[in-house]
């Protein structure tokens, strides 16, 4: 069914990235006090940047293809709590739970013209940002910000509703075990089956589940518990889904207490996300979409379609055997919180332009004849990429690759070089490409090589359409490493990795910001500050992700045209700011002065624009 949308898209212009036009809408961007001329000069300055057109096609925003994928005509019925698929909503994938509250009440809006005025940031109490607490739906808004409500969901929520203010995270990290237990295995049924109750209890305690089943009701994959244990529940899900299917309708999601269920149907597959982590439908849907892409990546669309057309009752878990770890590691990264999924963008390693250039050149110089894509990746951050002029890369595909190479252990633990058939659904969902992966040893002390963390490991990924090209790729790798050793690139990469992401205070000394996210829309890439010191622990990081989720959801709510969103709670102040050029999200102390916040935000944005060519891969090298 989604075949039409799955074809390779090569037209860069379909993505709503309009780098040239953007400068016209630039007015709404706050300009910087000391660079008054900037907003004017930038109009003349931006469009002529030579690599701009390439930029467009380097990384295609996924939303386009996603919209195509989801374009199924259905009847429209919508009820209070049960979301069915509205024809229009199919594309927007709007999130009910997350957005309803935020989008309806009066929202923190700011007059952009005021924010944009050169003196805006100095204007003191002229209060360019007006924030107001939404009244009607306060209960729901609170729920959004309440990440780990699971401990005492009901009491907390009621209390919060009554109080009309924002729920708080506990100040300390008491709940680290809570989030960590999310990744633990439920365990297996013993032979007598007498531990079933215990296992089910553990299973129910998980705050996040994914279940993939076939239209015929066969369980295909579940994040927690094996299909034997939870077959009853899978049956229930199947019954609920088919109840709507029978009426020619598609179930999109529903709530039960504090648990949100989101259903995504793709061909003969139903993918279900069950979350008590207060995530929006939109986010859950993106996560399910990524899981579906992983299945396509393993099997390709034609063979998936074929399997079910030959035998609708096919047990897909068999052909998927061995790729469960890929699905699980994707699911785990969503549970921890994945910014690249949230923003549908990629992060690059910050490195000087000339150093990146040198690496690009080394890649181009050593390029093997059957190479399609060549990538150098440091811990899921892209360092360099070369590609044919007419083919772009899709962030969704890269996310699958990075998950396979860095998150799942199957490739890395092997210790050698790998040769992996992989389908990149964004590139072409109907066939396999062959991926050569080799990890680089950039540490001086081999002693500690076992302790190299995910962030520090550097991989060369070479992709070819030729399944016999392994040794050709291996040769290219050897030549590439030699080149990079000679011109010092390896050392530069190591330095860049060691430097890590900058702290907010490195960028703006004394800033009130604890963390920020900046997405460059045209480049489909993002950058952010370091998690340390505020968000080093898993739990705190997860909360940060939740705050960003909510900020993102409120800004991107359907039918709202929010440009600035300022949200105050007792535990944090969050601030989102969207222009045609970038999306900016940041988190600060509660009770942060609005002006200080706006000032810092614009300084960071200024910094990003100054460092643009180091933070992002602009255009990339083509051949």
């Amino acid at each position, binding site marked *: 069914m989604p075949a039409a949308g799955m074809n390779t898209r090569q037209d860069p212009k379909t993505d709503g990235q309009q780098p040239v036009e953007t400068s016209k809408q630039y007015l709404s961007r706050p300009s910087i006090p000391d660079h008054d001329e900037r907003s004017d000069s930038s109009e003349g300055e931006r469009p002529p940047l030579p690599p701009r057109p390439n930029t467009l096609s380097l990384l295609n925003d996924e939303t386009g293809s996603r919209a195509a994928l989801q374009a199924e005509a259905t009847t429209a019925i919508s009820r209070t709590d049960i979301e069915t698929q509205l024809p229009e909503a199919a594309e927007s994938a709007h999130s009910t739970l997350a957005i309803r509250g935020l989008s309806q009440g009066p929202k923190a809006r700011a007059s952009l013209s005021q924010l944009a005025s050169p003196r805006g940031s100095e204007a003191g109490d002229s209060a360019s940002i007006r924030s107001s607490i939404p009244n009607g739906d306060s209960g729901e808004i609170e729920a959004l910000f309440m990440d780990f409500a699971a401990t005492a969901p009901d009491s907390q929520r009621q209390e919060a509703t009554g109080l009309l203010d924002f729920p708080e995270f506990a100040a300390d990290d008491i709940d680290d075990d809570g989030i960590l237990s999310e990744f633990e295995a439920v365990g297996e049924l013993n032979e007598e089956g007498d531990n079933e109750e215990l296992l089910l209890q553990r299973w129910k305690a998980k705050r996040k589940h994914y279940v993939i089943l076939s239209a015929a009701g066969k369980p295909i994959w579940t994040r927690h518990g094996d299909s034997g244990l939870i077959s009853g529940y899978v049956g229930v899900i199947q019954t609920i889904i088919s109840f709507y299917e029978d009426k020619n309708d598609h179930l999109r999601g529903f709530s039960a207490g504090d648990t949100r269920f989101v259903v995504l149907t793709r061909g003969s597959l139903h993918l279900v996300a069950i979350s008590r982590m207060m995530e929006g439908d939109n986010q859950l849907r993106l996560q399910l979409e990524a899981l579906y892409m992983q299945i396509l990546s393993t099997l390709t669309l034609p063979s998936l379609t074929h399997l079910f057309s030959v035998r609708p009752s096919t047990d897909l878990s068999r052909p998927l055997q061995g790729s469960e770890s890929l699905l699980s590691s994707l699911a785990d990264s969503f549970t921890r919180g994945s910014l690249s999924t949230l923003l549908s963008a990629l992060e690059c390693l910050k490195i000087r332009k000339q150093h990146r250039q040198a690496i690009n050149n080394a890649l181009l110089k050593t390029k093997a004849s059957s190479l399609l894509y060549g990538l150098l990746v440091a811990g899921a951050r892209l360092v360099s990429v070369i590609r044919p002029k007419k083919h772009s890369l899709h962030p969704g595909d890269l996310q699958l690759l990075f998950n396979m190479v860095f998150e799942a252990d199957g490739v890395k633990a092997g*210790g050698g070089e790998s040769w992996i058939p992989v389908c990149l659904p964004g590139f072409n969902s109907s066939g396999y490409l062959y991926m050569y992966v080799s990890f680089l040893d950039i540490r001086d002390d081999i002693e500690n090589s076992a302790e190299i963390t995910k962030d520090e490991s550097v991989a060369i990924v070479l992709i070819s359409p030729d399944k016999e090209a392994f040794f050709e790729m*291996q040769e290219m790798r050897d030549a590439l490493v030699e080149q990079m050793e000679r011109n010092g690139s390896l050392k530069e990469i190591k330095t860049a990795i060691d430097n890590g992401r900058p702290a907010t205070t490195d960028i703006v000394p004394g800033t009130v910001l604890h963390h920020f996210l900046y997405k460059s829309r045209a480049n489909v890439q993002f950058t952010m500050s370091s998690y340390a010191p505020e968000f080093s622990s898993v739990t705190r990081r997860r909360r940060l992700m939740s705050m960003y989720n909510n900020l993102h959801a409120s800004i991107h709510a359907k039918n709202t045209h929010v440009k600035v969103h300022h949200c105050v709670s007792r535990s944090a102040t969050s601030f989102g700011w969207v222009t045609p050029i970038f999306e900016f999200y940041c988190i600060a102390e509660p009770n942060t002065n609005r002006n200080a916040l706006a000032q810092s935000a614009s300084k960071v944005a200024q910094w990003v624009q100054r460092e643009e060519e180091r933070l992002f891969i602009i255009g990339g090298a083509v051949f």
Partner: protein
Amino acid sequence: MSESASANAPKPSSSVKLVLLGEAAVGKSSLVLRFVNNDFQENKEPTIGAAFLTQKCSLPTRTIKFEIWDTAGQERFASLAPMYYRNAQAALVVYDVTKPSSLTKAKHWVAELQRQASPGIVIALVGNKLDLTNDGGDVSEAAVAAQNESESARDGDEGANEEDDVQDAVSGDARKVSTREATGYAEEEGLLFFETSAKTGTNVVDVFTAIANAIPESSLKTGRGTGAGTGQTSLARSAEDSRVNLGDRNAATAKEGCAC
């Protein structure tokens, strides 16, 4: 094991292309990891696609450099297997001594190799996970077999099997494929046979050494120094060496230029 040995007089060195085949989760990657890094990982994730590793093995008269293709055992990768065994000089067909179905799968692989691979290929049948059995690799296998027999003889009725299972659970012996059965099959087919434990290291190096010894001198390409590069017996190159595969002819000749 090998580095130190090569310190004295340079021995002739040759590359041997070896492929590992067998059902998923029998321990192929673990065997390789033990052989190459002398390491073991509990609960290793399944291999995706195939991994390529090299390791030298020093014999009294020469050094063998193994170029190892560790393939994924899942059904969906089976169609790629010919690419890896097509020009292999040696194959390790692995099964799990605690899982009878894995021996059946191993037999299929052996048959396929005998049918499709290079005629002179040296095949070793390897029963892995010996650590899960009572013999743990140290006790002589015959003794264990005898013991098993005496147990069933003692109980000698219908309840015997159950009793055995209980005893297995208690004693921790999970063996389901007897050494005798596998040896018999290996002898029939003219295979090398070993029972190994990648976890404890039992017999792992022995398998590779035995293979190195079993490779006929004539099929070794000599004169290739150690520094000659890893990709010498490339898929494409050797495709042209031994067997005529029409599908690959073009690719082989096209790549010939850059492969060396």
